[in-house]
């Protein structure tokens, strides 16, 4: 009995030792891949950041209002942010590659999924970035047009424009990432429909006199009497 126990234990220890002997080199390889990945990722980060600084990307972002958005969210400058993003994506890619070297069966699927997900993540980031730029540009355009056209509540119009564009962009981003896409789609449809309905009701009931006056002026009297006392600028 005692001998059997000793023999089983020694066999188990031998198996563990053999397993460890087989696993350790893979672990070392994984660590080496991770280390090399870190170095490559760091170098890429430096290159991307320098390239963006050289092309004055921060100034472009400042002009388009992206920098202000990032500042409000306590995030670093766009060149630094993109540099860090490149670092983490590359390094994580290497780490995941290293993990796959370990040969753990369950992890293989996750590794494959990760690499399939990467392009979609990049597209989502692209949509998000340019979507935010578009939201800033169009909300500012609406604000200025409303101020110069002497419309009531220009800031409300501008914020509404921005909100609608951001909701639209978010729904696109989530759809691209495949995160709750149906929920987002339905949510966006409901939100957009509700806004339009609210505006229609507000204009039709709340401002029916204004609507009548506006339509009469446009259709019956034409556009003549906009401002009788406007001074000639030129």
């Amino acid at each position, binding site marked *: 009995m005692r001998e059997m126990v000793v023999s089983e234990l020694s066999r188990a220890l031998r198996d563990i030792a053999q397993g460890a002997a087989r696993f350790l080199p893979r672990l070392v390889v994984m660590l080496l891949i991770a280390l090399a990945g870190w170095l490559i990722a760091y170098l890429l980060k430096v290159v991307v950041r320098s390239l963006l600084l050289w092309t004055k990307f921060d*100034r472009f972002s400042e*002009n388009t209002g992206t920098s202000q958005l990032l500042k409000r969210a306590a995030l670093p400058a766009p060149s630094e942010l993109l540099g860090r993003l490149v670092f983490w994506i590359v390094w994580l890619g290497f780490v995941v590659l290293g993990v796959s070297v370990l040969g753990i069966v369950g992890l293989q699927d996750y590794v494959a999924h990760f690499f399939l997900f990467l392009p979609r993540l990049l597209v989502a980031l692209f949509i998000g970035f340019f979507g935010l730029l578009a939201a800033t540009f169009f909300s500012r*355009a609406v*604000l200025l*047009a409303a101020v110069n056209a002497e419309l009531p509540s220009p800031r409300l119009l501008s914020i509404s424009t921005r909100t609608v564009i951001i909701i639209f962009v978010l729904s696109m981003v989530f759809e691209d990432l495949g995160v709750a896409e149906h929920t987002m789609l339905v949510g966006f449809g409901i939100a957009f429909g509700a806004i339009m309905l609210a505006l229609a009701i507000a204009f039709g009931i709340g401002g029916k006199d204004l609507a009548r006056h506006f339509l009469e002026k446009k259709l019956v009297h034409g556009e003549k009497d906009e401002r009788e*006392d*406007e001074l*000639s600028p030129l």
Partner: protein
Amino acid sequence: MSTEASTREPPSQPRTEGNSAEASFLTDDFLRQVMNVGEVDILVGLPTHNNAKTVGPIVEAVRAGILKWFPRERAVIINADGGSRDGTPDIVTGASIDDVRRGSKLYALRTLHAISTKYGRTPEAGTALRTILSAAELMRAKACVVVSPESTTVQPDWIQRLLRPVYNEHFDLVTPVYRRHMFEGLLMSNLLYPMMRAIYGVKVREPYASEFAFSGRLAGELVGRSIWSEESVRTSAEMSFTLAAITGGFRIHQVFLGDKSHTEHRASDLVAAIRRTVGTLFWTMGKNPADWMSAAGLQPLSTEGPEYELRVDPVRVNRKRLWQLFSAAVTDLEAVLRSVLSAATLSELQRIAKLEEDDFRYPADLWAQTVYEFADSYHKSVIDRDHILQALAPLFRGRIFTFLIENCNGTSAEEVENSVEALCFEFEKLKPYLVEMWRREVRIS
């Protein structure tokens, strides 16, 4: 007297050097007509678009002017039409010089030709002027004049007054001085004139003129430039033309014409006017900064007739509305203004925006500083350039409120002129501030 057949010059070939650009955008039919007419001494440019109601008397005035003061010169009217649908080109080309002769007992020794060409389906000031300049170069015109098809006050002697300095005294550009009401052309008197005078050192009263004359030399110089595809040149050719003459060192002269025709304006016209004029000025400054940075002092500019003539009769103006628009805009546009203006200027604007109507004043020095910071922001594209120009409109209304208060009814023309001079002085005083700001790569708030 000579008939058309006997007086027509032999058709001269268009210039071959440097005219490939013109040849590519002028229509074959137009080129054929230009070649048929040949060389001319005087060219009258008439850019039109659906001006059938007003263009008739203008053509008549032009013909009368040519007949009376330039009977021996070879002359042509070039109508550059932007797709009129009301028969405007037919009115221009259909009018006969005999109609003028009958009434005036004047006789021309040459034929006055009229050519019309359609350069596009929509009006575009830049293309219209480019067509006229190209024709002037091809026909080797000595002196050219452009007349607005909307000017209801054009007189036959305007043609002579504008053309004579170019034709006889070899000036390159003759700009007009109009008799205006003191509250008309406020963008001109409160921004364009003081700023251009301060930065370029030239006292051109009407940089955005409806009528102006120029030499064949200037036409030839400008038509060959690669500026015609630029947005600011296409939409505001008159302003670009004046600026090109100033920066190119051409000989400029001013001549008093008389009353400027009054056109009705709507609130939305202000932004469009700012785009056409201020936008073009800012764009030109950015294109060649050395032209204005190196300009020192005020250059003498000859003027025939009074340098200004103002009507001071009382008019009804809703000043309260201007003040309200300014105050509301400073609050609403805070985020935009923060990108465009320095912290000090913005805080000063916010301070005055809180003042009551009776206490509100937008001082000349603050206005000059604001405009210069807008110019610098436009140059550095801190936000979209068109947004910068749009943001200037409500601030301009605040300045106009102050101008109206300072020159209320009962003020003499001299006092109004003094007020404009004081503004010019502030613009001149702050020019070093603009230069310093311009040279910095980024705005330091």
